[in-house]
């Protein structure tokens, strides 16, 4: 590993660990207001949706609302299966199958 790589990874590791551990470290010294507690309940859904929707609609950077966008149709298939069966494994397999089929099709 070069020095540049050590700095890169060391920095990323420190930053990520600090983010994940700081509140755990503080433990009882941190209390959240009821509003904050309610807000936290929305965090996973908001963050994960904010990660996936651009990947589906802008897989190459620009908006791609086209029939040949496998990310979009694979994602729509996954959403449909997830809503229908609420089964994570089935969602992954169905989404992946639709995605790969779409890629092969276009």
């Amino acid at each position, binding site marked *: *590993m*070069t020095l540049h*790589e050590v*700095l*890169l*990874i*060391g*920095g*990323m*590791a420190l*930053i*990520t660990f600090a*983010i*994940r*551990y700081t*509140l*755990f*470290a503080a*433990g009882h010294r*941190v209390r*959240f207001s009821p509003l*904050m507690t*309610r*807000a*936290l*309940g*929305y*965090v*996973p*859904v*908001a*963050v*994960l*949706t*904010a*990660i*996936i*929707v*651009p*990947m589906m*609609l802008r897989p190459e950077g620009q908006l791609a609302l086209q029939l040949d966008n*496998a*990310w979009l149709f*694979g*994602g729509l298939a*996954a*959403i449909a299966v*997830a*809503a229908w069966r*609420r089964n*994570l*494994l089935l*969602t*992954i397999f*169905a*989404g*992946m199958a639709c*995605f*790969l089929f779409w*890629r092969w099709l276009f």
Partner: protein
Amino acid sequence: MSSPLRTALQGARDTIPMLIGALPFGIIFGTLAVSSGLSVAATLAMSVFVFAGSSQFIAVSLIASGTGLLVIWLTTLIVNLRHMLYSASLLPWVRHLPQRWRIPLGFWLTDESFAVVHRYYLDDSRPLGGKHWYFLGSCIAMYSNWVLCTLIGVLLGQSLPGMAGWGLDFAMVATFIGIVVPALRTRPMLVAALVAGAVAVVAYDLPYQLGLMLAALLGVASGLLAEHLLQRSGEVCLDDAA
């Protein structure tokens, strides 16, 4: 009789769907990192010491485009900031543990383990006592899977150089969809998702992944607002799933 080991194994077993979703993602990371100019040792070290998939992906694409260290670190901060919100959600169940537990559980906190573990903690039918073993089991399963997949990706990438272009990272999208969609049981939750998704698409071009942070904040705010408006109009949050 629920021994610690059995609880940990249960946590690992409940994480299996997440492992399968992360599998292609980890492999692609390994191939992509090496083809972006990162050394094999550094690629593995990143998975071992950083252990945060989406930020590792973004870092590798930034390295490929010759971005400086400071920008990569800042991007890491913004992309991973959501984990602080996860740790805040889990804090009530973790704060009683000694630091020798809180340090590794903090280090290993990921989207996937959070989703599995949070659901388990919310289930009040079991006593809180041994639940951290479940958390640990889920984390160890995710971690070993991630490091192993990175290694496989590094090895495969050398024999199948074109693999990075197959789009296998779509598995991450499918996994996150499988986590999010079943959680959309109330109208405020649906509002939060729709707003977050829309803002993320519109604000995509903001630098340093700031669009992601903005989308998350506005999503949470609109979820709270919808909850408030529904309560004021006398409606209870309907549980569509019931």
